[in-house]
């Protein structure tokens, strides 16, 4: 699966796509969904919750493990993707098309990677 060029990536394997200066959507990467295997549940945050760079805002459960999902930016959750909440397996099928939260009033960003940098980062992780 190709890593979308117009997204940015966190070391904790989340992607973020900026819609404008202050708004973005975020989800987990193909690497993350593969490592988790079949996803069965996401414990979603609520709209209006504050998120902080690098801090978990949800937990995701697969048949193998439970993991935190961290936010690549600081801001406020404007919307959660109800489709992903109802049927979390869509993340396995289309990780880059399945955003989990929409964040607004973004005040800070994590040290994010480009698609190229992220691909290299994943290669190193694999070894």
């Amino acid at each position, binding site marked *: 699966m190709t890593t979308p060029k117009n997204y940015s990536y966190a070391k904790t394997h989340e992607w973020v796509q900026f819609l404008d200066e202050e708004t973005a959507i975020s989800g987990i990467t193909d690497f993350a969904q593969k490592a988790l295997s*079949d996803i*069965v*549940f996401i414990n979603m945050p609520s709209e209006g919750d504050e998120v902080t760079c690098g801090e978990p805002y949800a937990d995701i*459960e697969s*048949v*193998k*493990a*439970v*993991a935190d999902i961290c936010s690549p930016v600081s801001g406020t959750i404007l919307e959660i993707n109800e489709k992903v909440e109802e049927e979390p*397996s869509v993340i396995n099928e289309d990780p880059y098309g399945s955003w989990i939260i929409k964040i607004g009033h973004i005040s800070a960003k994590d040290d994010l990677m480009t698609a190229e940098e992220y691909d290299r980062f994943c290669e190193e992780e694999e070894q």
Partner: protein
Amino acid sequence: MKLVFERSIKGTACTLLPPNDVDAYALPEQYQRKLDLHFPELTEGELSRHYSELESNAFGVNRGFYPLGSCTMKYNPKINEECASLPGFAEIHPLQPAYTVQGCLEAMALAEKLLCEITGMDSLTFQPAAGAHGEFTGLQLIKKYHDSRGDSKRVELIVPDTSHGTNPASASMGAFKTVAIPSKADGLVDLDALKAVLGENTAGLMLTNPSTLGLFEKDIVEIAKTVHDAGGLLYYDGANLNPVMGIVRPGDTGFDIVHLNLHKTFSTPHGGGGPGSGPVGCKAFLSEFLPLPRIIEEQGSLRFCCDSENSIGRVKAFYGHFLVMIKALTYILTLGKEGIPYAAQNAVLNANYMMKSLEDLYTVAYPGRCMHEFVLSAESLKKRTGVSAMDVAKALMDHGMHPPTVYFPLNVHEALMVEPTETESKSTIDAAVQVYREIYDLAFSNPSLLHEAPVKAAIGRPDEVRAARNPILRHSFSS
């Protein structure tokens, strides 16, 4: 196999009852059921066969090797059962007056004293029903301690990334915030990472020592000092006490609170054979916060003390699982002061022997000496053959042995966590090693056989994804 409802034959029963000579009484309309209850109808013989079939489909430590990592599935000696079924213990009622159960209270007081001696604690409660309940109770002691000092901002509990899932879960239940710290490359607690998160919000650190990686935290004394200096308390998760019991006392290394799993370390039945028991011990400065009732001695006799201003209150009815405690006490007295460390040493010896016998094939996640358990990684096996840790685990079932813990700890990919315990003989371990080696060879020669395993177990490979996504949680009756 058939469910008990599917075995049911209308009109059969276990017992012939005499005709009812009591007048029927009809409940008011609104309390009456609209539908009949579904009771299975079986003869006693059929019912007995049903349970025997269930038993034959289950796997226990009495059936075969059960090296489930971090669960300490040691053999449960029969003498424990014998002592627990003595009428003086088995036929009492928790509401009997204290003067009629002095022997039972004495047994409890003795068990408390011995477990305090083993853990280096000053007081101990037997109330918690099992391990996670013990964690919850222990964390309430931490909360109460900070509250009693008016220190209400201490809401953060630190856990290493190798911790048991119950640690963060108990922290959440206790309204704490969990802060996870990464381990160093050698699998041990990273002191710098710990220092970076310690502060005025730190309530304490929860630690399992040895850790889930089977490694002893060598820096434990310094870790304890660092946490104490920051105003936090140290919580010992007793899941892995087995390899150090009678050798290292958590209290001597700086821990303030300990929970034990009698159903792991002290040989009482575990899993479906329970119930468990998760006593919590603490240092003297925390004793006043322990749950009630507590056993006290007054004018030469023992009684339950039910009032203490600072106690966190009750965490369970009465005094916990009394007969489980009797079994653990029997175990401790049977092994004695020499036997307990000897059992621990043999647990370590068995684990190291088995690890060494497999290290040329499976990757040992943290090479070097292990304690009671070791973690293998099937990551390279999976890359080369497509055979995963899960496939290996399922294949082991076809050989009449229980798989190890898989996919845990989370920081090891394709993890297989093996804990043979001290109660297995060399020949059992050798036979198991032979099976692990055969499975490894099969992964290269015929991996598809391993993807299909188990074929000889009571059930084949369940569809875990479907079970998690669309669980069927109750039986549907056709009529």
